């Protein structure tokens, strides 16, 4: 497995202004990221852990080009997320972890056909079959998504994110509100993706158990800064090591 970095963040800063309803009133500033430095090696599953409001989602959305940083840089395979956003979007796959982000009246196959057009995938039928098979939805490919469980929706979101064969997969709390069986299934799919496709995955979670069991490396975000990094496999008690960082 090569160790070349696929994602490099340097001194990343982002704050938001929360305005009041009345015009002219001063807004309140919230510092979401306060100088984040992070390097993620290719082919790994990298967890970002932290409490609610620690900046996990903001970090992922900056990498996904959905939020612009105030200062600092992020590059994906050498492409800057601000200056070269269009190239970055072709290299990443994003799943927001919300079942809401799918077209519920359509089937998985129809959702994926639409996504294929967004990414310009030529002759997408085989790519669709392949990702449906990978996430275990091949038997339900033509049922409306509205009848799916949360776990199935998450797996479909993952299939959509993988359809254009991204180099970097961004998952924002992908197992939130899933039961233990669905979570274990999801982790199994992530490992299969890593093994079979060599995709780098960055996933945010506030579940330390999940981070310790599923990730090769874990970075802890605390109040908008990286508070430490742990490789669970090299720790005798990874859960405890992570708990000390959050």
């Amino acid at each position: 497995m090569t160790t070349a970095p696929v994602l490099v963040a340097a001194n990343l800063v982002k704050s938001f202004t929360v305005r009041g309803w009345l015009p002219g009133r001063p807004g309140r500033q919230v510092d979401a990221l306060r100088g984040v430095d992070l390097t993620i090696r290719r082919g790994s599953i990298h967890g970002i852990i932290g409490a609610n409001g620690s900046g996990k989602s903001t970090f992922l959305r900056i990498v996904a080009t959905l939020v612009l940083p105030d200062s600092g840089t992020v590059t994906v395979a050498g492409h800057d997320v601000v200056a070269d956003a269009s190239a970055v979007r072709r290299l990443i796959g994003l799943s927001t972890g919300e079942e809401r982000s799918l077209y519920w009246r359509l089937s998985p196959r129809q959702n994926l056909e639409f996504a294929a057009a967004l990414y310009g995938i030529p002759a997408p039928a085989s790519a669709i079959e392949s990702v449906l098979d990978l996430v275990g939805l091949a038997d339900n490919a033509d049922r409306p998504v509205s009848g799916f469980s949360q776990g199935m929706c998450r797996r479909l979101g993952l299939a959509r994110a993988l359809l254009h064969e991204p180099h970097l997969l961004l998952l924002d709390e992908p197992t939130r509100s899933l039961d233990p069986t669905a979570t274990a299934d999801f982790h199994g799919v992530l490992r299969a993706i890593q093994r079979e496709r060599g995709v780098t995955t960055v996933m945010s979670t506030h579940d330390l158990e999940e981070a310790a069991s599923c990730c090769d490396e874990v970075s802890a975000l605390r109040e908008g800064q990286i508070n430490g990094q742990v490789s669970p496999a090299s720790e005798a008690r990874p859960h405890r090591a992570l708990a000390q960082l959050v």
Partner: protein
Amino acid sequence: MVAIASASSPSELQPRYVVSRRRLLAAFVRRDFRIERSYRLAFLVQFGGSFSTLVSAGFLSHLVPGDQASLTRYGSDYFTFVLVGMAILGYFSVALGGFSASLQQEQEQGTLETLLASPTDPRLLLLFGAMWPFLFATLQLVVLFAAGGVLFHAKIASSHLLLAAGILILTVTAFSAMGLAASSLTIITKRTGPVISLLAATFSLLGGVLYPISVLPRALQIAAEALPMSYGLDAIRRSLVAHPNLHAIGIDALVLAIFSVVLVPLALQCFRWAVDRARRNGTLSHY
């Protein structure tokens, strides 16, 4: 044309595909048709609205004699005048509100972020997202004109239908600029329904839907002349009579072309600016 990026690129981590606009447009129309069709009752009831428009035009025409001076240039038939006005108004409503409605739907169902995280230009996402409503409005227009001719003997000359269609496309393009600008507001303020309703009511009042703008007081006529809708409706009506005044239609078409060339790029630029602002503020996914 779909192309695979150069394999001789210095890095092996290079983008693979190029988005095809033709395939993308087809994908949007197919997606929206499938979603609309899945709501069977609503899909069918939408045609009921067209029938109501037709009957309203029929009743209104009983009240207004056709031999009025202001109707002469349009063929002296009030039913045809009001039918064309109301049918085209439905089309304009899509041009004004269709883009925002599509965008707001993506925001509310949580799909906007995944769309914007794709390599497709956000302006194409906006334009193609409203294509199905335009196609459906076209279908309604054809049904309305055909039913108006068969049931109420509307005097629609078929000799210059292509000219009328061309003027309609030009008018809708010019009018869409306002709809595109409204979408920028949707990105920033999240809800623009009341603004669009107010605009639609104003255009309905001043645009010459139920009466020619020549019957308005002079001050309102001046306001009406600033709207692309007035020129569009005038030209479409003129082109649906047996012997159209091509010179007058040409002048209307020129004005509409100027509106289109100036306003549409401006509105698309506004949308791009609005998306960038929402990315800066972190509010893209808010609704």
